[in-house]
């Protein structure tokens, strides 16, 4: 099999379709090309392996999302089971079947359209197909509501890949996270399909206004309307993810496992994750403090979300998913270690702030990450400048050993930059 592929590859070499074939080829096998000159470090984790690792970390979320789609639908229709047991009510064939026929089309459209755009651009520009879409294609179906019409998803994917990535020069050159660009496009273009209390449960929109109407409001949406009374979801429901939400972001537990896996394999930055969690807790604590001090009256429209316990922000909505899988994108995030702390902290901080203060968007994590994507190069710039300044100062104060040539300072400056 492997040899046959190598032979076909030789046949296509130099033809226009070569990049398209090579992409499929190297996806599964190590290429048979070797470098011809110089010394090279050989490592197993090329870009494709990195991407595959992230996808591996996303698979549990996808499977959970499939079961949850069925569970939320049947519970909304028949009422939530009184004594919930995972095996009896959650992992069932009915749930899986319903989830599979609603979620898998999203995955197929996301990958099909996105990779088609990548292939077209690779053939036009005559370079190899870039791996960047592998992760994006998996993230997209997990961060949209279950019933997003497929053509809307296709339009958004084309927009996100072309405007979010290809115009900047392709994978590795993009300023904004493509998956979040796609979500932001959907959010602003088709708001009725992206927010409200109908879209989170399968068939919710179709049945609206009929006798069979069903709805499943997200916890954040419920709080944003100023409600403070207890909702029907228990703490463990929120943590394990048996709540309505976008397809794959409800289970904080599985996201946590995925995050640990990514940290362990050194794919994602633990600094960003930790500081983002710290940032959201800090903002949550500030809001809790304002409520405790009695500075805000109960009829205020912000009261519902402000009194929400600060640590619970982490287990509802897409915050955990965003922190683990999106904020840690190595291309669009900060590159310096100190920069990562600032970048992550501000993502958590702003996410909770947008949640509370913007009644139009009960979930703000995608906006917070996109905003910080834009600021990441600035943060890095000042971190590097600070470092250069510190070293220049140290050099000035150091006792300079014999014969300091005049060009020395300039040389050092070049080195530190």
């Amino acid at each position, binding site marked *: 099999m492997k040899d046959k592929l190598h032979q076909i590859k030789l046949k296509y070499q130099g033809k226009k379709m070569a990049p398209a074939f090579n992409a499929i080829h190297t996806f599964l096998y190590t290429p048979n090309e070797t470098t011809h000159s110089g010394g090279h470090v050989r490592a197993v984790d090329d870009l494709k392996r990195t991407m595959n690792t992230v996808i591996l970390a996303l698979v549990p979320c996808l499977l959970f999302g499939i079961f949850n789609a069925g569970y939320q639908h049947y519970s909304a229709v028949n009422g939530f089971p009184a004594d919930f047991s995972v095996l009896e009510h959650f992992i069932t064939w009915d749930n899986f079947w319903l989830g599979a026929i609603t979620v898998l089309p999203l995955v197929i459209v996301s990958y099909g359209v996105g990779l088609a755009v990548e292939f077209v651009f690779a053939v036009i520009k005559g370079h190899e197909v870039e791996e960047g879409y592998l992760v994006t294609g998996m993230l997209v179906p997990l961060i949209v509501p279950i019933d997003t*019409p497929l*053509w*809307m998803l296709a*339009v958004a994917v084309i927009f996100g890949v072309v*405007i979010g990535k290809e*115009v900047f020069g392709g994978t590795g050159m993009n300023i904004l996270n493509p998956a979040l660009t796609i979500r932001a*496009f959907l959010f*602003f*273009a*088709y*708001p*009725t*399909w992206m927010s409200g209390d109908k879209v989170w449960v399968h068939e919710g929109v179709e049945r609206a206004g009929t006798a069979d109407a069903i709805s499943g409001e997200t916890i954040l949406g419920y709080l944003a309307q100023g409600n403070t009374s207890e909702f029907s979801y228990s703490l463990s429901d929120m943590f394990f993810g048996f709540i309505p939400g976008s397809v794959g972001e409800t289970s904080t537990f599985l996201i946590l496992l995925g995050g640990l896996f990514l940290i362990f394999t050194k794919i994602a930055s633990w600094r960003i994750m930790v500081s983002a969690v710290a940032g959201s807790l800090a903002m949550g604590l500030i809001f809790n403090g304002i409520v405790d001090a009695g500075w805000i009256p109960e009829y205020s429209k912000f009261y519902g979300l402000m009194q929400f316990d600060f640590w619970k922000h982490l287990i509802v909505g897409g915050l955990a998913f965003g922190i683990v899988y999106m904020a840690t994108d190595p291309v669009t995030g900060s590159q310096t270690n100190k920069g990562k702390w600032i970048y992550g902290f501000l993502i958590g901080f702003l996410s909770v702030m947008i949640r509370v203060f913007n009644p139009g968007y009960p979930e703000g994590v995608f906006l917070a990450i996109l905003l910080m994507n834009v600021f990441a190069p600035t943060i890095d710039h000042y971190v590097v400048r600070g470092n250069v300044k510190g070293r220049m100062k140290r050099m000035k104060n150091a006792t300079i050993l014999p014969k300091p040539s005049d060009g020395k300072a300039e040389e050092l400056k070049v080195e530190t930059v």
Partner: protein
Amino acid sequence: MAILSKKDTNLILDPLADNNPITIQVLGICSALAITAELQASVVMAISVIFVMGVGNVVISLLRNVIPSKIRIIVQLVVVATLVIMVDQVLKAFAYELSKTLGAFIGLIITNCIIMGRFEAFALGNGPWRSFLDGIGNALGYGVILIMVGFFRELLGSGTLFGMPVLGDPIAKTGLYAIGYENNGFMIIPPAALIVVGIIIWVQRSRNKALIEEA
């Protein structure tokens, strides 16, 4: 071309494509973003700017030898402001609803960089006839882009052209809406205009190799 010499023809044709004020010189972007959500507003804006630029260029060109160079900007402002107020009053008299849609943006033609740019760069150094052609040419180049952006934004954002439904009725679900199509709300907001203008620039540059800058 008997009426116009080749040089004069270029004064009109160049700004339409290869030296377009919006896509190549990147001037006059603010109004291109603000008023292009509807095709009708784009067309009215384009006509207003053609009038102001054509007449303004002629006036400045006639005055070019008597304007003291130290206060020329103020003189130019007075000329533009006069013309813009005329346009504004005409719109208010004959198309009141439309003038409300355009709001402050007719008044803000005064600050449109294209106008001051052409006064400074062309009208101050050329005769009235050539200045007139230059003004019309640049305003047409501006108008063409405005109308293109307005066309796509209104078609995709509202499903209408000049306010007439062309894709069917979104409430009664006829035409395209019957098969699940929906208007793209993103096209209504100003950032969409930035992206549409960007795509026009992209297409133009990839078709015209002379415009590709050295990396």
